[in-house]
């Protein structure tokens, strides 16, 4: 499947040299990076990774106990890394003909990173296929926030991004993984993600795709494998005309006392959204809640919500809540009665709809997200 989708895209772009100082990038590109939460100055960041096309152009960590490496380098440096790499998502094919790229981020046991690590996966060449395979390991009792910004260059319309991200959140550790996508309108995006969460650990994923893309297909999966592990997915999608998104998230509750919460907010302004969600309760005492809300801001487009709950034993508590429709007239009138015009009222309601209050998210990250939401064109 991967093979066929790559046809028609450039397999190997030009090699890019290492960029010591990311602030030397052209202002228009810096602006695009900023919209995906990536600050080229590296202020208030524990580390920065940037991959341009298929070359790693920047990679460093400024906090002790936080490692940021190229994945190839990490596999050479640590023999054990091979046990993790491909451990959750087995390789489908051998010898991709390209040097391995992607990031390796690891936090040593007991280290609580004060600032997030930022990673940027950037397509700068028209028509290029970018492939990454990332590995994240949060060792026991450690914690980290990661911001991943995936984008195409300001003048790139067409491209392919294939990304694999495997994450291990060990006993008592915490990982908050925020990913903001900002693609050109003819870009095909195929990320895959799998996370293993051990006892007492917490994994939160926040995914935002607020602008057009040709096709985005993803269904990351998390297994809560240890007692009391917690998994959260927040997914915010906006699909303009010409965009197809098939995005889901899945959590397997495989240990007693595990808890999952999946929240999705989707908006179409004419694009097609399939929003999936799946929680499987495999052991007694597991709990999960799934919420899909969709807003149709156009007569065209489609939102297809598919929430799935699967109980494999009797003593699990699974629930879901789904609602799809247009902006309620009575809500618009309510705000108009307080003095807003119809357009202002509608946009206030829509921004409120997207305003998911993400539990445990650092203020700084919330600001990045607020900025991304404010910048997103809702076609109104």
């Amino acid at each position, binding site marked *: 499947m991967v093979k066929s989708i790559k046809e028609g895209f450039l397999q190997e772009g030009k090699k890019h040299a290492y960029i010591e100082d990311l602030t030397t990038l052209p202002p228009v590109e810096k602006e695009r990076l900023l919209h995906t939460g990536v600050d080229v100055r590296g202020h208030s960041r524990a580390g920065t990774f940037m991959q341009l096309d298929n070359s790693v152009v920047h990679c460093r960590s400024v906090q002790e106990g936080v490692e940021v490496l190229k994945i190839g380098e990490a596999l050479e440096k640590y023999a054990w890394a091979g046990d993790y790499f491909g451990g959750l998502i087995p390789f489908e094919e051998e010898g991709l003909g390209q040097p391995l790229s992607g990031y390796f981020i690891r936090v040593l046991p007991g280290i609580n990173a004060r600032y997030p690590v930022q990673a940027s996966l950037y397509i700068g060449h028209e028509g290029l296929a970018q492939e990454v395979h990332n590995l994240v390991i949060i060792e026991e009792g450690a914690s980290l926030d990661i911001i991943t910004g995936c984008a195409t260059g300001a003048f790139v319309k067409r491209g392919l991004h294939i990304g694999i991200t495997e994450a291990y959140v060990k006993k008592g550790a915490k990982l908050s993984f925020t990913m903001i996508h900002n693609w050109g309108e003819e870009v095909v995006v195929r990320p895959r993600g799998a996370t293993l969460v051990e006892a007492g650990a917490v994994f939160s994923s926040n995914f935002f795709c607020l602008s057009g893309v040709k096709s985005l297909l993803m269904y990351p999966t998390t297994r809560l494998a240890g007692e009391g592990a917690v998994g959260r997915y927040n997914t915010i999608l906006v699909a303009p005309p010409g965009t197809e998104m098939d995005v889901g998230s899945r959590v397997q509750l495989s240990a007693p006392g595990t808890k999952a919460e999946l929240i999705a907010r989707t908006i179409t302004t004419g694009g097609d959204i399939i929003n999936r969600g799946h929680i499987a309760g495999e052991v007694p005492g597991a709990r999960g809640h799934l919420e899909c809300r969709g807003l149709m801001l156009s007569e065209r487009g489609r939102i297809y919500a598919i929430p799935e709950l699967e109980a494999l034993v009797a003593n699990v508590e699974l629930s879901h809540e789904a609602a799809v429709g247009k902006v309620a007239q009575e809500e618009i009138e309510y705000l108009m009665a307080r*003095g807003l015009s119809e357009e202002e009222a509608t946009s206030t309601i829509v921004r409120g709809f997207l305003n998911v209050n993400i539990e445990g998210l650092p203020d700084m990250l919330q600001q990045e997200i607020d900025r991304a939401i404010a910048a997103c064109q809702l076609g109104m």
Partner: protein
Amino acid sequence: MLRLENLSVAIGDRTVLEDINMEIGPGETHVLFGPNGSGKSTLLGTIMGFPRFRIIQGRILFKDEDITALPVNERAVRGMGIAFQRPPTIRGVLLRNIIEIAARDGLTPEELAAGLDLTAFLDREVNHGFSGGELKRSELVQLLAQNPDLVLLDEPESGVDLENMALIGQAINHLLEKEVVRWNGRPLKEIRRGRTKCGLVITHTGYILNYVEADVGHVLYKGRLSCSGNPRELFGCIKRVGYRECVHCVL
């Protein structure tokens, strides 16, 4: 302040209000009585300009301007404010946000909320999970922020317990400039003359009259104004004989 002239209103194809005439002068508070389904809420909604109420005849004048064709927000900007009977929940929009949207004066959400015991609600989603009394107070705090010249209240007493009722009565009197001001040597007549805010209050139970002094009462029966007069006298009569008698006046 507000004048309704030969107003007839339809919802869909059904005529709900017929030939309504009413005038509310500056400083006056009117109450609207009537049985369920008589068209009270429709009349309030029509004055505010909600599009589902279609005016088929007549016009609405506010501050001597014909506002019959103006949208809701233009009426709000000109000084009309309404407290909803069943306000909607708006997810992700906080009570604080909507107070800021409504605010025409310099008061902060904190100052306004404190007066209605709503401080703890400022950072909650507006109306989400609010109890009956909390909803009414939420509506009133928004109106206080808006500080309208014409206050439209749709059953402000419904679903409210006694304790809340006093708070709500106080807020309404504040909105209508009817607070009992400590005597400062000014004759009462002068205080009353200085009052400009006016109100139209729907009441089903008449209970609100114990808290807010009204100047004129109207009875709406089957879409027509059947009589107007002293509100306490009208209410007393309704209590004794019910709305059945109104049919004679409509015919």
